[in-house]
């Protein structure tokens, strides 16, 4: 058949067989058990409520039905018109078919001011859908804010529902995924709403490093609400339909007199390229949710679990011959670190985190022989791969996530140093650069480092060097470990010497190769690039049983 076909959408008939098989693997039915129990114990005419003619069973059914349509068909249609899915559709798509077990379907808000107590202002479940389910059979807790009910605004009840599943996720050790689509606080509830936010924030903080927390922003998320996603491990956004900001364009205009659109202020593009608040942006709801499933596959369920190992079809001893020629002869010439990463990892499958922000460092998840690993690499293609404020912070946060969740870290080094300049110094490159150093030093997960070319100056130390407890440190034959490049070094060492070119040649001969580091044992071996995959896979097997503990402390004090 032909090469490179692309089938955009499967026709309906062909997935039926597949659905049958899913059913057999995830036979969890939601709600049905509880309903059945109620049916037998309560006879229809046993008790009557103020609604008079309705039995409890009928009322249960009615409430359930009402909960399923949220704010009603009209608002659902409006949601669809905006190119957004409803809270329930999102949950259904995110989780394995029929695996969702909902909780708190009957919870209603408790506000009695401003006419909120009226029946027509009560919605079973209020403005959020919560529960648990499975992604590829693995347990996950989910909340999905319902924009069709009071614009998804956060009431005390809404917050309480979220807190409940977060507490449970912590007790059993399963990740929490939040699907955010909320106009903000429920203004009618006042401080109760604010208290609700704080309750969530507290849980975000307590859960941090215990279970992975992921936020997917699928609509507005403004004001205090933004701090919940900010506290979670990953924040993903949907292009064109999601916004994150502390204050909206109107307030901005009145305070600073800046004219700015919602999209410019807090759209997906802003946060994935300028602010670094979001880790990735997806085309639309469907794309985002399907990607979330893929992303989830990389993660362990909690800090008690090892890095997940999936069945792997890519031979662990595969030689990658294209790597032998990837590093150009001229040290000033760029190449794409992603080419190296894609070629080495299983099936070229690399989930990049923050691909459009601080592009001089590349971070993301991949698998080696089926096992999830975190990849950190300097990107020579952008700003020569130097470390600056943004790349240091981006790298540091990623390394700390990996360390918290037992994910081995593989670091590819080609770094000419830290970026000089007043902008960087005034911006605090010293304390921000220290974050990356801190993160690598503190990490106790398996750490494998490959120096592909330059490892200059302090940046050499930072990038998961042997000195920061790197478990296995390799150098490619093209590696150069030195305090600085030849030109600068010669100007200092041979100041005043006439023949600078000769001195430079001498320096290059001495330092522009992997030997100075290798003879001191600072790299464990000089390896042929083609064998890199094979070697990393083998080392990871060995390091699987690595045990390393940092000294007892209440908590460390990372330079923030």
């Amino acid at each position: 058949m032909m090469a490179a076909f692309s089938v955009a959408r499967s026709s309906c008939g062909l997935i039926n067989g597949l659905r049958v098989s899913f059913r057999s693997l995830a036979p969890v039915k939601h709600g049905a058990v509880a309903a059945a129990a109620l049916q037998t114990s309560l006879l229809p005419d046993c008790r009557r409520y103020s609604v008079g003619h309705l039995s409890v069973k009928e009322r249960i059914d009615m409430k359930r039905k009402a909960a399923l349509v949220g704010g009603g068909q009209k608002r659902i249609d409006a949601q669809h018109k905006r190119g957004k899915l409803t809270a329930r559709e999102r949950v259904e798509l995110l989780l394995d078919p029929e695996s969702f077990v909902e909780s708190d379907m009957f919870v209603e808000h408790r506000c009695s001011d401003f006419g909120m107590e009226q029946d027509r202002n009560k919605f079973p479940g209020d403005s959020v859908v919560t529960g648990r389910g499975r992604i590829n059979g693995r347990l996950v807790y989910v909340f999905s804010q319902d924009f069709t009910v009071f614009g998804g605004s956060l009431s005390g009840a809404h917050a309480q529902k979220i807190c409940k599943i977060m507490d449970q996720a912590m007790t059993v050790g399963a990740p929490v995924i939040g699907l955010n689509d909320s106009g903000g606080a429920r203004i009618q509830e006042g401080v109760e709403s604010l208290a609700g936010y704080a309750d969530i924030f507290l849980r975000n903080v307590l859960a941090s490093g215990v279970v992975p927390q992921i936020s997917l922003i699928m609509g507005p998320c403004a004001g205090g609400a933004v701090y919940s996603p900010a506290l979670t491990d990953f924040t993903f956004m949907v292009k064109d339909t999601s916004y994150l900001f502390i204050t909206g364009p109107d307030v901005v205009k009145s305070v600073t007199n800046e004219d700015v659109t919602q999209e410019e202020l807090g759209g997906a593009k802003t946060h994935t390229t300028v602010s670094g608040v979001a880790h990735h942006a997806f085309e639309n709801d469907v794309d985002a949710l399907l990607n979330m499933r893929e992303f989830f596959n990389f993660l362990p369920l909690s800090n008690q679990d090892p890095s997940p190992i999936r069945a792997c079809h890519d031979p662990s001893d595969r030689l990658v011959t294209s790597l032998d020629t990837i590093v150009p002869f001229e040290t000033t010439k760029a190449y794409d670190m992603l080419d190296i990463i894609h070629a080495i990892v299983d099936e070229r499958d690399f989930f990049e985190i923050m691909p459009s922000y601080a592009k001089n460092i590349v971070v993301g998840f991949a698998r080696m022989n089926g096992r999830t690993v975190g990849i950190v690499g300097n990107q020579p293609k952008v700003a020569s791969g130097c470390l600056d404020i943004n790349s240091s912070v981006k790298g540091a946060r990623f390394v700390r996530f990996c360390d918290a969740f037992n994910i081995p870290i593989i670091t590819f080094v080609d770094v000419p140093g830290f970026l000089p300049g007043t902008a960087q110094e005034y911006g605090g490159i010293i304390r921000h650069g220290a974050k990356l150093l801190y993160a690598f030093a503190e990490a106790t997960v398996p750490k494998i480092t490959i120096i592909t070319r330059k490892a200059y100056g302090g940046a050499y130390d930072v990038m998961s060097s042997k000195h920061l407890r790197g478990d296995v440190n390799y150098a490619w034959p093209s590696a150069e470990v030195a305090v600085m490049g030849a030109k600068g070094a010669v100007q200092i060492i041979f100041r005043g010497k006439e023949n600078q070119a000769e001195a430079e040649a001498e320096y290059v001969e001495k330092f522009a190769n992997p030997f100075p580091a290798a003879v001191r044992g600072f790299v464990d071996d000089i390896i042929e690039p083609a064998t890199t995959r094979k070697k990393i896979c083998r080392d990871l097997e060995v390091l699987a049983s690595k045990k390393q503990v940092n000294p007892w402390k209440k908590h460390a004090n990372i330079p923030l």
Partner: protein
Amino acid sequence: TFDKILIANRGEIACRVIKTCQKMGIKSVAVHSDVDASAVHVKMADEAVCVGPAPTSKSYLNMDAIMDAIRSTGAQAVHPGYGFLSENKEFAKRLAAEGVTFIGPDTHAIMAMGDKIESKLIAKAAKVNTIPGFDGVVETADDAVKIAQQIGYPVMIKASAGGGGKGMRIAWNDEETREGFRFSSQEAASSFGDDRLLIEKYIDNPRHIEIQVLADKHGNALWLNERECSIQRRNQKVVEEAPSTFLDSVTRRAMGEQAVQLAKAVQYSSAGTVEFLVDSKKNFYFLEMNTRLQVEHPITECITGLDLVEQMIRVAKGYKLLHKQEDIPINGWAIESRVYAEDPYKSFGLPSIGRLSQYQEPLNLSNVRVDSGIQEGSDISIYYDPMISKLVTYGATRAEALSKMEDALDNYVIRGVTHNIPLLREIITHPRFISGDISTNFLPEVYPDGFKGHQLEVGNRRELLASAAALYITAQLRSQKVLGNLRKTCWRLILQTSTVEVDGGKVEVSGQWNLASTLLPLTINGTDRMLQFKVRVLSKLAAELNSYMPEKVAEDTSSILRSPMPGSVVAVSVKPGDTVAEGQEICVIEAMKMQNSLTAAKQAKVKKVHCKPGETVGEGDLLVELE
């Protein structure tokens, strides 16, 4: 023969020559530009010398540097390959002056045949059929028009010094003649440093059939049968075969004998090719003689069993030919597909560049020969020809060779650059091609609106959907196979065969599902197929919900002009504020030695010009904005 040969070329032809050197026990020297330092031909050679920076005029055409390389390595002979210095009389002279053997014909033959006008006079004298309406050198556009009118339209305009189809344009009226004159003289100047032009009668609907000749320095010459090279796009060959389906033995002999007459008339030695145009009545006309090894020489090697490079080296050393005309067989059938890094959906192929992130030649199949000079990880740059490889298959019969070609194309993995395999596969499976009903107009006739990709039939579509679904299920099942997963015990069963229902029909798909492999061999309803997938499958639910997803608004392309390929800007014909008519030229982009005129899609005022002459632009770069 020689002890050491320098190959003044790059890419697949350099590798090809080095292979024969190795076979003959001759040491080889490669030359390379700095960007080619880790190229395959450099690695294959015993020695390598850098002859300059990336642009060909500073490296592979840099005679001084190449002469230095010859001296420093002590090479006794030079094989020029094709292109570059292969038909450069100056180079041949300089080699002769230093006593270095040029592996090719003598200088006088290169000179005689290199000049289109002189070559035709010689051909006429040697009683070779020549094209009617043949004329001389052109000075101005008005002269060009005059000449064209004398010959009668249509006429063909090209650079006198250039080989192949590069710089060749066809004019049907005065205006097109002027335009053709302008382009051809520019191209002639930039590519050959010689702006002489040639205008001649254009034969409509011709076949391009060429005769391979081989001659020694002792007056012996052979013809090694023909190659049919009619499948061309923009006068560049795409698919070639030997022998031709069109020639009978009488015509073949007549063509062969005329070719040999011509070779003898110029005291030709070495391998050469005499190109003919053949009309529907099997009248044939001399087109030109290429005094070098041709790109498509492998198919002649396949059917005759000769190693042409070896023969060239022997002849250059002064040995007599080993064979007699009656020893030259036609054994079976050979087809060559030129695999290019280009986008076949734009004018049957506009250059594409990039890094070959994955590359796998179909060498697992028998009777397949792949001549290439690149490997996984190689860069296809704007500096050189975008050819990836020559894929040659052979068989006892044409049908066998064709079916092998189909398999070979299916098994060929190229990722990272856009390539023309979809077009090649369409050509070799097209009923007209299979029946041999072809001409040089094959592509524009078969695809008048351009190549749109393979049009799937219902059955194929169903099979493909079924395979995609089965692949999706395999991937989904694999996602569940996570160590420590609560439900892993449920997943003992590994999917081998699955029955998929598509639009009411049942399709059975089975295979070894290796999700890491680029090639997916499947058995679909009992037929073996080789698939390469890049597929996105949505579950029923996702597909339903996807219907709510808004279409992203595409940018209005009628008011912006983007570069269709990477290259350099030669000329910008407009400035902001100008009003352009629909179809008016806006700028000219040169890529891989080819000039492409970009025109306005509508009448409009020029809003902004984002490029200037001399600039390098990438594919999709914004050039000009219209209002």
